[in-house]
């Protein structure tokens, strides 16, 4: 387990806390929307909507659209979830540290 400074004493009405939580949520939504766009383009776009166009190109022994429908999209999905887990867990850590700092009375901008 990572080190867990106590954040249970954080005052939820503190404007700095409200701001930190807002910032966390906006970043979270931004990451999510970006990844979902890739999801839609790779799966529903390359795999379905443009499959006939992509099939004019070859990838190894595969027509490209066919490859996206049966292999490529799955690989993209896997990478998307990996990236999401890495980015969001890091964001959680930053958020945790930020809240702990507010809780311990330090100004959030006093350290790099």
């Amino acid at each position: 387990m990572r080190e867990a400074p106590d954040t249970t004493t954080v005052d939820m009405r503190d404007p700095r806390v409200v701001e930190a939580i807002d910032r966390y949520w906006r970043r979270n939504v931004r990451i999510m929307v970006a990844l979902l766009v890739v999801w839609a383009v790779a799966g529903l776009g390359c795999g379905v909507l443009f499959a006939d166009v992509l099939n004019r190109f070859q990838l190894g022994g595969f027509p490209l659209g066919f490859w996206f429908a049966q292999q490529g999209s799955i690989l993209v999905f896997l990478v998307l979830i990996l990236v999401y887990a890495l980015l969001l867990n890091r964001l959680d850590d930053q958020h945790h540290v930020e809240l702990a700092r507010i809780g311990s009375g330090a100004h959030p901008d006093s350290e790099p």
Partner: protein
Amino acid sequence: MSVQAWTFLFVAISFGVYLLIAWLSRVSDTSGFYVAGRGVPAIANGMATAADWMSAASFLSMAGMISTLGYTGGMYLMGWTGGYVLLALLLAPYLRKFGHYTVPDFIGDRYESNAARMVAVVCAIFISFTYVAGQMRGVGIVFSRFLEVDITVGVVIGMAIVFVYATLGGMKGITWTQVAQYWVLITAFLVPAIAISFKLTGHAVPQIGMGSSLLSDGIPLLEKLDGLHADLGFASYTQPFTGAWSRGNVFCVTLALMAGTAGLPHVIVRFYTVKTVRAARWSAFWALLFISLLYLTAPATAAFARYYMIDSLHGKTAAELPDWFHNWRRTGLILWLDDGDGRLSYTGDGDAERARANEVFRGGTLGATELVDIEVAHQRWLDSSGANGADGREVLRARGLSGPDQDIIVLATPEMANLAGWIIALVAAGGLAAALSTASGLLLVISSSVAHDFYFRIVNPAATEAQRLVLGRVVIGLAVVIAGLLGIFPPGFVSQVVAFAFGLAAASFFPAIVLGIFSKRVSTVPAMAGMIAGIVFTASYIIGSVYAGMPSWCFDIGPQGIGAVGMALNFAVTLLLAPFFPAPSRAVREMIESIHEPEGAGPALRIEAAPEH
């Protein structure tokens, strides 16, 4: 050793392991029973989720469907994996932070309505029973084909095993058994695929072998398949949007399967079993990684099997036909009704002439006596040069039974490639593992829906821990018996009803949960109206087109894809109504804020702090 001896050995060993795990992980409280005490590591939860998700349909039927459909089969691959992206990004971490036991828990608490909770309970039970019936059919097929025992005996054995580990260990027992079942099923799927790939193309990695040239004549496999398909009148293997599968239809089915996957209660509930929000994210990744091992291999198996199927059957005489054909003919999964020239002709329905020339069929839901009648009449028709009897090919074609059953692909491919007996036996153990692991996860959803959501949350909130645990075990026991009966007396509509389950999950749960998490404005009435609109539209469209012969009036979309439209309708109704109704109560808004945020003393942390066991 014979194939049957190997099969007995593998099945006995794997069943022994499942029972041992069940005994080691028995539980004594509701937290252990429903969410495994929330103590499952992310990677183990990922394996359990993968085994839970990959059903008899994924293991036995999916490669077969791809083999038959070619490009279009990719919609199952994309739909059933793409749903995990939605699950991981939109649902899993937030539901974990919410921290109760079930999907109806979330719907009921978020929308502050027992009516909404009840709708969710009914949907969860319906979806689960639909699914379980399919699993039991899979168990029956494996037992009857490989061990040559009666289907009834096979189902009873399977049910007895699930009964023991599900009632003893609840979610904890099921989770750890599923981890073992995952390894059994993935080994059973990969070993034959690797062996066949090596044999056909010289590449040990099936995903590469699929894109390589055949060792026999140096032509790339996919090019060869496209050529054979064109010659024999089948739709192209690699080109999209052929026949009934228009672009719009493939799009809708893919989207409906994706949203349906993310809305299926037995998958969602797995993310309640991990320790933390961050573990929920990781476990979604592990789950898709383990699932993709099978899903990336299935299209390769499908292409290899397609090649073997055409190559070893078309144009052959009875004496030249391979052993596997004769073995499987007895099961009714593949039939040959000759036109009198003594050579088998396997052709597609690209044009009327080729469709008439096809001589390969399947028994489908026809009984053994009906099939014998058709074959006898066909023989009379042949002997009398058409004067007496009836052309069995026309009879079966009229019933839509052209071509072999798709389940034969995975079951018979190792035999097609003449692999060793133990590899063929491994497939039997893998098929059973896939069916049993999914069945047990679904049975737990049924049990928690009745004992937790209905009894504890609605009927008797004062019920003690001990009462709830007893009721949970009794319900799971009853559900096992009902599921067993569905396996022994399979309702003929099972395959159509599975499309129903996905459509319903996409049109009801998915929008309600997503809006419940991401909107603080949507309250009870708009959400209920949306769910009901989605369910009624989707259900009536599917029932209408499957049973009443209704034309696909909605942009030509078939019943499998209509869940995507139902989902859009649900979202639209909910969002349009939301501004006209008061916002949810303060308590609910605070709950939503707390699940948006990974920190703080939300309900998840309180449960975490509670003593375990």
